[in-house]
């Protein structure tokens, strides 16, 4: 990146500077591994990345300190942050976000690993089952949300009707304040487990056959085989699934919005839906501040986590 910028500014400045440059750049190249492409190859990507991500992100750090509308902005210091942290829905939103992220990513790891094992073993209709498990991933979150909203209706929904046949009085999945968040998490797992399964399948299949054979020769049963061979050697898959689903869970919004809109009341609000509601209400500065907070929170969780998972991978 810095090299790219250096070379472009270099070409626009005086020739004396340019003449002075090459030796230093050559030195740089000698120090680091030379890339296969010249620096300006990165330029289009850098422009797109800068214009669509870097500049807006940096600007948002400033606008988080203002009360702004489309036409003007007023600098108010850290007031937005003070306001955001006094937002009663926010505390709940934070707790809910963590609960939601941990539940969904935990369930995806467990179920994904189980299904991955099942679908890599020799079973009847394996190709069909693989397709069925993966299918929900392809459907739009909003579509899934609306469908389940209908299915989970406490009096007219198919789920409670089915439970009724078994003589069970089904709960108000999405309207019981104690249950709403978990119901959405359940649907999230249903929708996302296909991807986790796919990642695990790839991980399990890539384990060399020799390990299995060696373990079998040593007299390992299925459980030992799983515990000491399959699980540790598919660790890259586990870490990918955890990272992806945890990030997904932390910034989850679409499914929750489609199913409950954070309701009933504020009981299933997550950080992203709290922020969205501020934006919807026209509190642009406040919602920008919320996004800065979300950005920092996700970074603070995910960065150490990926480091940790990567180190674990190396140790293996």
């Amino acid at each position, binding site marked *: 990146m810095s090299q790219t910028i250096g070379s472009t500014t270099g070409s626009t400045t005086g020739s004396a500077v340019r003449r002075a440059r090459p030796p230093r750049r050559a030195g740089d190249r000698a120090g680091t591994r030379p890339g296969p492409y010249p620096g300006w190859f990165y330029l289009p990507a850098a422009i797109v990345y800068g214009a*669509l991500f870097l500049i*807006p*992100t940096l*600007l*948002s750090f400033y*606008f988080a300190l203002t*009360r702004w*509308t*489309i*036409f003007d902005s*007023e600098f108010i210091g850290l007031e937005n942050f003070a*306001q955001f942290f*006094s937002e*009663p*829905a926010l505390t709940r939103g934070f707790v809910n976000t963590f609960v939601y992220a941990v539940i969904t990513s935990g369930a995806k790891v467990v179920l994904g690993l189980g299904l991955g094992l099942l679908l890599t073993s020799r079973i009847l209709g394996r190709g069909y089952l693989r397709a069925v498990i993966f299918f929900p991933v392809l459907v739009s979150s909003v579509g899934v949300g609306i469908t389940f909203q209908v299915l989970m*209706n*406490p*009096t007219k929904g198919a789920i409670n009707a089915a439970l009724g046949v078994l003589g069970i009085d089904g709960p*108000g999945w*999405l*309207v*019981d*304040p104690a249950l709403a968040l978990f119901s959405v998490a359940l649907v999230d797992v249903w929708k996302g487990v296909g991807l986790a399964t796919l990642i695990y399948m790839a991980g399990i299949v890539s384990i060399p056959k020799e390990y299995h054979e060696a373990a079998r020769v040593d007299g390992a049963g299925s459980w030992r085989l799983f515990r000491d061979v399959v699980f540790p050697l598919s660790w890259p898959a586990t870490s990918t699934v955890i990272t992806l689903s945890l990030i997904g869970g932390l910034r989850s919004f679409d499914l929750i919005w489609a199913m409950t*809109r*954070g*309701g*009933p*009341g*504020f*009981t299933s609000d997550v950080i992203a839906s709290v*922020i*969205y*509601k*501020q*934006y*919807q*209400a*026209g*509190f*642009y*500065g*406040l*919602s*920008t501040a*919320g*996004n800065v907070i*979300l950005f920092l929170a996700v970074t603070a969780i995910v960065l150490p986590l990926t480091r940790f998972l990567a180190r674990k991978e190396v140790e293996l």
Partner: protein
Amino acid sequence: MITTRAKSRALGAATVAVLGLLPACSAGSLGSSDDGGGGGTTITWLTGAEQDDQLQAQAVVDAFEQAHPGITVEIEGRPGGGEGDNLVKTRLQTGTMADVFNYNSGSLFQQIAPANNLTPIDASTVETVDDSYLPQVSVGEDVYGVPYGNAFGGGVMYNREVFERVGVEVPTTWAELVAAAERIKAAGIAPVVQTYQDTWTAQLLVLADFHNVAAANPSFAQDYTAGKAKFATDRAARAGFEHLQEIHDKQLVNADFASTRVEDGMRALAAGEGAMYPMLSLNVSTLQVVAPDAVEDVGFFALPGQDAAANGLTAWYPDGVYIPKSTTGEELEAAQQLAAFIASPPGCEAIATVVTPTGPYLAEGCELPSDVPQITRDVSAYFDADAQSPALEFLSPVKGPALEQILVEVGSGIRTATDGAALYDQDVQKQAQQLGLEGW
């Protein structure tokens, strides 16, 4: 993330504004070329993009063009809600607004800087507009809009047949309403219908109670805008929150309140499974769709408060039709004619052909058709008796966005009324600060 979205939205608004400009330009040039041939003027009218909005505008335009053969009106659409607000403001600021547009009256009207952006309506037209409406579309002496459609009320829809069967009268105090509800409950009918899947419906007991708040404390709206009066500390204002908690605590609501929608509520009300449904009279249209045979069984009364003598309706006023400053010359003349037409009996009649009136028209000479639903007649009776006053949103620009969720929590027993009112006061503060009001 939101920043990018806001940007793309602003961009979108700009794009729409530019696109909006194109027809305006071509219309202008068309108009002038037509002039050479002794033809007419073309003006544009920006209204909602929803089908109902378009149909209503089309009906008015058809009748207008017949009465004024020299003028052609082209209808444009815009989104509703906050997005529509942004679009209207952007187009006004950039001078690219259509020649005529309709938009909210009352406090939202005040937010589009009428004195800077709008042209006053001709005095001869203003004379035909009902006095009760003028404060909603005026700044100082200048009147900027004419009423588009009819007024409506917030209160309680009730099943008249159930009331008769159980033997209860229309209540004029809250205590009477609760007593009636207990008797209806004893008869095995859900006394009050609530539908929290459509969260906005949870607000009725608070918003439609404002006539009673204003009766108890006439300066509430003013003090509230200035940040001096609060819902949590004003007894009359807090009453709405308390009523909502009361009907939940006494189990006077339908069992499936948390999972039902307006349509379900209307169906239950029409079928006599529920007796009273706090609602806007505007929603008579929903009733007509879900239970066309039972429309006459359902009546309407104002939400009662403490004092039977002060009983009256909390009223909502129709949108206004406005003319921006960017409309000039022949287009301005044609726009003024359109405004005059909308505030005249033929205009009202044209609207009535596609939209069932939900309350009285606020233009001189406009009579309700004889076949309006019972609800509309009941609402009009309050206007005729002058027992009505504007809802808070017409008197103050301050309305917190989280009121619906807070009231769903109060009405579901998740939060107490006192707590809910205090939380709403916090919510309101953000709105007041964003608007840059004094005293917050």
